[in-house]
């Protein structure tokens, strides 16, 4: 009996590890992990006519460089932006694309590249998922299911 319990425990741990390592989306050499739409103030941020951001890690497993050239969602307008901290000043600009070199990872994160949403038409709930469509020059269109989170 003890052996069965131990086996089940090890299996559960392994499955959990595999599940957490699985990418949110994978297509034509592009792998997306850690994708999240951030509602830092929680669900109450809905309907505030403010902007939100999504972050993720994009890995290019192919032998050729690729480029993220566009993003779209069905819950508002989406665009690529880059935040830069120069000294202690925050600057943010819209950008046309993000290069993803062959065999490398690029992180979309706070204070750097991110996807910005504005004119949001649907209520986003922490814990739910929304789809973001990413357009790559080589890998084509990649739909990523993205968790809404407050952290």
């Amino acid at each position, binding site marked *: 009996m003890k052996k069965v319990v131990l086996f089940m425990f090890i299996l559960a741990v392994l499955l959990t590890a595999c599940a957490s390592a699985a990418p949110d989306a994978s297509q034509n050499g592009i792998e997306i992990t850690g994708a999240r739409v951030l509602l830092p*103030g929680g669900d109450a941020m809905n309907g505030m006519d*403010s902007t*939100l951001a999504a972050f993720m890690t994009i890995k290019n497993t192919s032998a050729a460089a690729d480029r993220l050239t566009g993003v779209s969602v069905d819950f508002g307008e989406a665009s690529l932006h880059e935040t830069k901290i120069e000294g*202690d000043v*925050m600057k943010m600009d*819209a950008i046309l694309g993000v290069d993803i070199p062959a065999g490398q990872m690029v992180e979309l994160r706070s204070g750097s590249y991110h996807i*910005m949403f504005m004119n949001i038409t649907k209520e986003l709930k922490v814990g739910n998922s929304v789809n973001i469509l990413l357009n790559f020059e080589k890998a084509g269109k990649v739909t990523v299911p993205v968790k809404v989170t407050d952290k």
Partner: protein
Amino acid sequence: MRVNRRDLWVILVLTIVVAGMATYMFSRPIPFNGAVITPPKPMPNFTLQSAQRVISLNDFRGKLVVLYFGYTNCPDICPLTLANLRQAMDRIGDKAKDVQVLFISVDWKRDTPEKLASYASVFRPDFIGLIGTQEQIDKTTKDYGIFYLLNIADKNGYYSVDHTASVLVLNRKGELTLTWPNNIRPDQIASDLTQLLKQK
């Protein structure tokens, strides 16, 4: 085992040394995580608009005042900084009543007192959002060494705002005593607030 007088002296001296070290370790001030302004710098008063009333810095004399300048259409740094401030305030528990967080919008074109009130209170009900006329914002930001620039709008009318991302902390006398970089962690903020609250 027989202990002679010399051994007793050695034990006594060692005990005093260890006790002294322990006292020093536990009573010494914990270093601040933010940049300390020495000596604290007296700051001019400001008067800005909240959704409910006109608010001045002087209203909060006796409390620590945490000042963050940003704008509600900021998708990245501003909401994350406010979320970090909320977590830090939650960490310090009852002591948070002696700290006032003021979120001052530099986006005088788009932000309204009502929008700021909703936005700030989403993070914590006791956070206050403030805005003013262009003249008031220009004066306050100049007085507090805050840079801001409303960028040119895109084809959809959206514009971003460049602004100082540091957080300013004023002591109970309204003097600038500490600044935090935008990437400071909630536990570091909470530690600094706890230290500052010990000061009279």
